[in-house]
C-alpha cells in the first residue's frame, strides 16, 4: 500500500500541469532606460513688437513650450539689441513667463532648477523701453536677439 501510494504520488507530481509546463516556461524580463532630455521651443518664430500709446515702449508677445523628463534648467543669453543710429537711451527685456527673465546685454539669466518632469507652456514677452529723461523711444526700427537654452541635467 505504501509503495502504491508513493508511486501514485510520483505519477501525480510528474503528470500534473505544473510539471508538464515546467519545461516550457520562460522568464520574461524587460529592461530599458529612457534617455534624459529637455526641449524648449519658441512656437511662433520672430516676434513683432509694437509701440505703446505713450510712445515709451515697444513690446511683443509670443509663446514658448518647455518640456523635460528630469531635472533641467533654462537660461536666456545676454540680449543683443539693435537700435536706430543715435537713438535715445533704452532698456531691453526678454521674459519667459514663470521661468526666467533677462534684462542684461552682458550677462546670462538662469532659472532655478526645474525638478522632475515638466511640461510648461507660457508667454514670451519682449520689450524695449525708453530709459531717458524725455521718456520717449527714438523713431526707427529696433530688434532684439537672444537664445533660450534648456539643459537636461
Amino acid at each position, binding site marked *: 500500500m505504501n509503495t502504491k501510494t508513493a508511486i501514485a504520488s510520483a505519477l501525480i507530481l510528474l503528470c500534473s500541469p505544473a510539471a508538464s509546463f515546467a519545461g516550457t516556461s520562460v522568464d520574461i524580463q524587460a529592461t530599458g532606460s529612457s534617455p534624459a532630455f*529637455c526641449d524648449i521651443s519658441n512656437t511662433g518664430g520672430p516676434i513683432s513688437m509694437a509701440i505703446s500709446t505713450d510712445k515709451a515702449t515697444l513690446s511683443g508677445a509670443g509663446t514658448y513650450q518647455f518640456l523635460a523628463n528630469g531635472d533641467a534648467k533654462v537660461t536666456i543669453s545676454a540680449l543683443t539689441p539693435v537700435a536706430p543710429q543715435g537713438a535715445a537711451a533704452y532698456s531691453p527685456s526678454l521674459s519667459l513667463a514663470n521661468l526666467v527673465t533677462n534684462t542684461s546685454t552682458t550677462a546670462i539669466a538662469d532659472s532655478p532648477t526645474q525638478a522632475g518632469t515638466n511640461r510648461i507652456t507660457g508667454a514670451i514677452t519682449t520689450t524695449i523701453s525708453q530709459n531717458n529723461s524725455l521718456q520717449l523711444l527714438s523713431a526707427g526700427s529696433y530688434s532684439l536677439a537672444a537664445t533660450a537654452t534648456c539643459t537636461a541635467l
Partner: protein
Amino acid sequence: MKRCFLLLALLWSGQVSAQTVYLEKKEFALRNQTARIKFQVSHSRSEPVNITVRVKGPSSDPTKPGAVLTEGVRLTPSSFKLAPNKMKKLLLTLTSTASAKTPYFLCALYIPPVERKEQGGGATSGFALLATESCSRFWLVP
C-alpha cells in the same frame, strides 16, 4: 530596444516642436584623453529645418554650460537640415585633458528664419528673434 525608447520619448514630446539631443549614456570614459560619444538629434517642427549641434565645456557651476568648444571637438556634420521626427545619428569625438570627472554639454540649436518687414516713414517698430537650444549634460570620466 533603445530605438523604441527614443521613439517613445519623441512621441511623448509630441506637442513640442523643439529640437532635442538624446544621449544613450550620461558618462563616457576617456581613453588616451579621447571619448567617443554616440548621440541622436531630432525635432518635431512641421517642416525640415536647419539644426546646429555644438559642444559646450564646463563652467564654474556644474549645472550651467560654459563656452562653446571649438578645439578638441570632431563632429561631422555639425550643421544640417533635418526632416521632422527623424533621428539623426551622430558621433562626437571629444578630446579632453580633464583629470577629474567633468561635465560637458551637447546642444542642438535652432534659429528661426527672419522675415523682417521694414516699415518706412520713420515709424517706431521692432521685432525680437528668440533662438532655442536644447542641451544634455554628460560627464567625461578619466
